[in-house]
């Protein structure tokens, strides 16, 4: 069957967008008095320069990719999970606390319980807006945005209150995990851990389910035309809810990975709107799994590489500018195309009218 969205026009417009973003980024750098070639060189150097950075960007790419895929899963059936950020941090804090509570148990058991707990919390937290959408038709975008803030508040409370780390007076943080529960680091000094293997398996699984199975086929039909899917006998409500819950569970799991793989403690830096970044990636990837992977790696390289810019005196935020411009131009591409087409047609019509009018008058 067809290879839906990943085709030449898509790749072309993506390359154009990235090119456009790099040019705009270069212009801003120039105006600010920096040498763009030097800066871009430093980004590449920063990302690939040493093993630690390669590990860091791979870890970051993993987080973005899983967040993006979680968004894709829900969006495929036509429900938009904006609440991944909340699901992620709740998953993180619960997973971390499970590790603290189970101190002394075998590490495989702790990891398993933490993963299950994180997924359960994330799933439940996604179920709520899901059921409101399916049963009451309340806009899930708004409810999930609200629930994000509620989750942030809740985690702040837990990390400052009942689950507080007694050694950290000022910041909100939980107890640190015992080192035996840490997922082993793959590149010493970097944040990359064995979690990436699970992430790879998960990515392959999502890709497989979405593109190769009858379940993915039902999801696609439900997202494209829910009335048609329902007419054909697909239980659309249940499917939508299920995908939303799985999406939430995946976000929860990302939170667990962040804690057990990288940070080993819950604190507010566990996620810095990472889910939103993943969500934007999912959107410009047109909700296809493979471009999500590619774009995640690209943005991760950009981000980790840009961190190095500081050392040569260039503000690292240039990476966010470049990222935003890529998204702007990808989101607007169909609008630009139809606007150009429209203009062409109007021009033609005007010409035709002139010819006709001229004929009549003469």
């Amino acid at each position, binding site marked *: 069957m067809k290879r839906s969205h990943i085709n030449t026009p898509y790749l072309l417009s993506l390359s154009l967008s990235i090119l456009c973003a790099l040019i705009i980024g270069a212009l801003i750098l120039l105006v600010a008095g920096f040498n763009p070639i030097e800066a871009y060189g430093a980004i590449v150097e920063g990302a690939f320069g040493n093993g630690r950075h390669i590990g860091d960007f791979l870890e970051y790419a993993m987080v973005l990719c899983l967040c993006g895929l979680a968004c894709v899963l829900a969006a495929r059936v036509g429900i938009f999970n904006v609440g991944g950020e909340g699901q992620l941090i709740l998953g993180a804090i619960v997973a971390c606390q499970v590790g603290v509570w189970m101190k002394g148990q075998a590490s495989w058991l702790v990891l398993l319980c933490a993963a299950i707990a994180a997924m359960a919390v994330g799933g439940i937290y996604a179920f709520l807006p899901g059921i409101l959408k399916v049963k009451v038709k309340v806009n899930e975008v708004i409810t999930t*945005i609200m629930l994000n*803030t509620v989750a942030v508040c*809740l985690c702040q409370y837990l990390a400052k*209150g009942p689950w507080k780390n007694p050694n950290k007076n000022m910041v909100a943080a939980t107890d640190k995990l015992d080192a035996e529960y840490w997922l082993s680091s793959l590149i010493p000094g970097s944040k990359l851990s064995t979690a990436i293997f699970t992430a790879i398996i998960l990515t392959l699984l999502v890709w497989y389910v979405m593109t190769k199975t009858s379940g993915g086929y039902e999801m696609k039909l439900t997202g494209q035309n829910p009335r048609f899917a329902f007419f054909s006998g697909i239980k659309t409500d249940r499917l939508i809810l299920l995908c939303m819950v799985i999406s939430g569970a995946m976000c929860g799991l990302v939170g667990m990975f962040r804690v057990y793989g990288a940070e080993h403690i819950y604190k507010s830096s566990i996620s810095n709107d990472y889910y939103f970044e993943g969500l934007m990636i999912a959107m*410009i990837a047109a909700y296809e799994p493979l471009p999500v992977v590619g774009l995640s790696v690209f943005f991760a390289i950009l981000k980790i590489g840009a961190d190095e810019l500081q050392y040569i005196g260039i*503000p690292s935020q240039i990476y*966010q*500018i470049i990222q935003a411009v890529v998204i702007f131009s990808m989101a*607007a591409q169909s*609008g630009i195309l139809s606007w150009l087409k429209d203009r062409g047609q109007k021009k033609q019509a005007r010409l035709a009218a002139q010819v006709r009018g001229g004929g009549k008058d003469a």
Partner: protein
Amino acid sequence: MHDLLSRIFSAATLNETLRTATPVALAAIGGAMTEHAGIMNIGMDGMILMGAFFGAYGSFLLGGGWLGLGLAVAIGILVGLLFALFVVKLKADEFIIGCALNTFAIGLTGFLSDSVFGYNGGKGMAALPKLRLSFLDHIPFLGKGLQGLSVLFYITLLLVLVLWLFVYRTPYGLHLRAAGEKPETLRTAGISPEKMKWIASILCGITCAIAGVYLSLGDLEGNFAKNMSNSRGYVAFACVIFGSANPAKAYLAALMFGFFGALGTCLQAYISPDLTAAIPYIITIIMMVYVVLRSQRRRRLSHRKEQVA
């Protein structure tokens, strides 16, 4: 108990409520415009941040708080135009454009801040005046609560009134609401709904810019810190939803959010301020469910009634 109540309903609480509510309210009344025009505006956070930076930068560059405000508003208009260009003209998804705008604002203001002010942000530029009104000293409770508020607080009140009048008392307001609710009616009446959406975006850009200026030049001494909007755009969005896009109600919603924040400070000894801060969001969700259920029931009832009649 009495002690607690008096602490909650004190002039200090009022003062804090008003101070924290003002930037959120400013953004929310702008968000009410875009909401009326049928645009879900997630990008307010970015708009605020741009306003905060360019207010501070303007003040730093031109040496005056008011000049900073002027520059911020000019940039706010540009940001509103940019938003409308993508959402209205190029028909891009408003959600992704909002998200991208937020990222863009964080990136651009961070970049410029580092370039201009250095890594630790900017401090000490001329701020906007705070009003010390002598007659307020003679009013027992309110006077103390209202004393020493930024001039922007009063501008906010004025803007709420102006925008409320605009939406509900002028023909243009009618067109704005029609553009969001049923654009075809406008089109068949010979008015362009797109034009109203452009206007709404620009208005939102302006008020969000002022909200940002409040953060950088209004409340504290002039300063700019990276990402200082601190998700206020989302709070403003909640206020818009809560106030069903009515600028006056959105202002009240902002006061509610501010009050729950101030309440947290008062009740610190009893309950975590983080929990009290979450309450308004939960109320917003409950409100949304209630509104949907009510409108569904009302529609069913009215049609049944009609058939019986």
